[in-house]
């Protein structure tokens, strides 16, 4: 790194450039370097080396200054990131603080970011459910957004490809709307979860409660050991970075793999200002970065460019890449760039008590939980809203402590205590409909300290989301009631979009260049050597956690890019 000779164009020229090192950028880096391409990976934040840069990973609660609680100074100065469930004294160093990287909320949007090598792959919830054609065919069947240019058969082999390498724990459930994959042994459901699963199976058509597939090494294969990873140790401290490599992150998996190839140059502290477009050649020739430490502007060149800056920042980079050919942003002939942003609706929750299975509990911790695949509007339209929701589902018991009074009795109450009944709970994960009115754009006046315009975010819920939320509460209340659960407590919240951390779209894939930015291979329609394979490419959101799909889309596009390079087509 220190030897980068910035005076030499040759030293700044690579076969490929990958913008971003998160979950999709890491995959692009691995695939491109694995195919022999000299690849520059640009990361706007600092480097985070696996294990070495997980400073809190071995700490016991009493070793933290506030034993894990957040100081008021931090929460008051950072209201947005403080709303994220994973932001704590053990993980705060992996999150962007509100004031560090401002943006403009035309409408309230909790933009949760992780600016470092590995990005949010250190912090994700590690849920990995495949899409099916019930998802890819959604927009065409239900008449929203545009038709996906790909179908399940196009992506299925790539799901398998990334699953084998990443390591996905799951069971073969045989559910058409949630296809099975290449699984390591699945984590079991506990007794109360099994009870509900059997109840639902017996009493409801096409409704299933399964163990959620997750990116954890329940039983590593040789390929995972070769990556230097070992079995997940059920610590449930994933947000600190895992010293065992028990879950998939770029840091534990794809980035070191790319590094081992000898073909990767990783450049942290490099914020991409824009992609350079050459009018004569009719393609992109490189990227312009600002070194965040020196504020120096540097150009890097390559034959292909992968944009994996995370959904909204990818939009920002493309919008800011203007030229006389593309005055409104790279590839934006259609005018849809930045538009049709969507997310997942997590704003309803339900909990209850279960009076059975009292003689059973669990020992140890599970890295995952139960999952109810979408059951609404799957085979046909059956409600007054479009699409549907998946549900998280879990049951747990805990030791009930008494903390009345003071003195010796209190001391005893804090140690002893009966086991509680099972508590069951669920949250919704709803598909939202992409619309032109949900968009991001460049602020015309405000810029960040590197001279890049701030992003305006204007994204909101709509009536469809409200109806879906209501249906979730009704359906789950009914299912819980019929299962005999007691003290059922539905709740809704008004969390801003963004807090789901599933923002998607803005540079959507589509068949028609007039209404989309990317083709079926994630190439910018009008600039074929630029590939966008992170959340920005998503035409619709369905309701599965999206990261696995980004991985598969990225691996597919990267291998296509290599083929096209070989053929001289890009």
């Amino acid at each position, binding site marked *: 790194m220190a030897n980068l000779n910035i005076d030499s164009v040759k030293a700044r020229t690579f076969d490929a450039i990958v913008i971003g090192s998160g979950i999709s950028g890491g995959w692009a880096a691995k695939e491109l370097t694995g195919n022999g391409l000299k690849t520059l990976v640009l990361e706007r934040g600092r480097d985070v080396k696996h294990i070495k840069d997980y400073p809190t990973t*071995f700490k016991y609660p009493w070793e933290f*200054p506030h*034993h894990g609680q957040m100081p008021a100074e931090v929460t008051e100065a950072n209201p947005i990131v403080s709303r994220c469930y994973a932001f704590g004294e053990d993980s705060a160093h992996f999150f962007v603080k509100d004031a560090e990287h401002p943006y403009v909320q035309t409408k309230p949007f909790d933009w949760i970011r992780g600016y470092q090598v590995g990005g949010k792959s250190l912090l994700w919830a590690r849920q990995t459910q495949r899409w099916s054609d019930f998802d890819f065919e959604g927009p065409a069947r239900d008449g929203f957004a545009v038709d996906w240019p790909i179908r399940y058969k196009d992506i299925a082999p790539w799901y398998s490809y990334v699953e084998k390498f990443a390591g996905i724990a799951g069971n073969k459930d045989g559910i058409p709307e949630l296809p099975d994959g290449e699984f390591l042994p699945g984590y079991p459901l506990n007794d109360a979860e099994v009870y509900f699963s059997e109840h639902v199976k017996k009493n409801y058509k096409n409704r299933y409660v399964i163990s959620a597939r997750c990116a954890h090494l329940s039983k590593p294969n040789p390929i995972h050991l070769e990556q230097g990873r070992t079995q997940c140790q059920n610590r449930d401290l994933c947000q600190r970075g895992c010293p065992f490599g028990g879950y998939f992150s770029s840091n534990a998996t794809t980035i070191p793999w790319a590094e081992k190839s000898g073909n990767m140059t990783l450049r942290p502290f490099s914020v991409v200002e824009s992609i350079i477009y050459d009018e004569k050649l009719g393609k992109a020739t490189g990227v312009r970065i600002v070194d965040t430490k020196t504020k120096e502007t540097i150009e890097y060149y390559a034959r292909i460019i992968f944009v994996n800056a995370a959904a909204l920042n990818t939009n920002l980079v493309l919008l800011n890449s203007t030229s006389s050919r593309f005055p409104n942003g790279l590839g934006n002939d259609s005018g849809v760039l930045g538009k049709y942003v969507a997310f997942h609706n997590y704003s309803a929750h339900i909990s209850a008590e279960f009076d059975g299975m009292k003689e059973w509990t669990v020992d140890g911790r599970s890295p995952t939980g139960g999952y109810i695949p979408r059951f609404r509007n799957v085979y046909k339209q059956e409600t007054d809203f479009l699409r549907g929701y998946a549900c998280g589902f879990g049951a747990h018991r805990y030791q009930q402590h008494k903390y009345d009074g003071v003195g010796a009795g209190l001391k005893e109450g804090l140690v002893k205590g009966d086991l509680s009944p099972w508590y069951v709970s669920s949250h919704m994960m709803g598909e939202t409909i992409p619309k032109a009115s949900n968009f991001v754009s460049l602020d015309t006046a405000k810029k960040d300290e590197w001279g890049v315009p701030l992003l305006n975010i204007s994204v909101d819920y709509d009536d469809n989301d409200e109806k879906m939320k209501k249906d979730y509460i009704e359906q789950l209340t009914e299912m819980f009631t019929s299962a005999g659960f007691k003290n059922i407590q539905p709740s809704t919240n008004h969390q801003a979009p963004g807090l789901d951390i599933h923002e998607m779209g803005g540079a959507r894939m589509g068949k028609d260049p007039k209404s989309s930015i990317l083709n079926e291979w994630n190439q910018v329609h009008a600039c074929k050597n630029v590939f966008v394979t992170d959340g920005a490419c998503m035409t619709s959101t369905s309701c599965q956690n999206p990261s696995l799909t980004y991985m598969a889309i990225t691996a597919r596009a990267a291998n296509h890019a290599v083929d096209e390079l070989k053929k001289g087509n890009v």
Partner: protein
Amino acid sequence: MDRRTVIKNLALVLGGAVLLPSCLHHDGTSYVQLKHINLSSDQQSLIADICETIIPKTNTPGAKDLNLPPFVLKMIDDCYNKKDQEAFLAGLNKFTDLVKSKYSSTFADLSAKDREAVLTGIENSAKTTAAAPKTPARRPKPQKNLASDPLMAFYWGVKQQTIFAYTTSQYFMTKQIFYDMVPGRYIVHYPVSKLKHV
């Protein structure tokens, strides 16, 4: 690779990262340089005595043995907003006045029995209000915000932080319970009868 070997190797990689944080003074009266609130050494000493009344030395160590008061002060200083801290400080004065009017004494000069009576008296008077957390519960964490009633803000602030300090102390998590940081297992259909501590 064996789990213990992995942990050992990783600890070697990390080196100093596993060292314990530095300790605070063990002095019973003069403690901590606070950043956000002013507490005289008498006031700090009062809070330490309340901590010790909440978690007294029995046949196991008490709050002062475990050096909990400095941590309680640090939490009140760092983890409450200004409004809560103002209520807390106002409550501290009310508490002092209450003890004085009832016993014509300072808290420090009361017998252990009277100290307990003062605290349980306040706690029982709050049973019907929202200031009192519901019981039983999981091992409690302090609430993010304090009650608006100053006396309750003060009492619950100290009590919740003392319980938190105690239940997250190395002593408690290693000697009173076993905090299993690396379970390495998830077993379902596990008989309740096999659980420890129940």
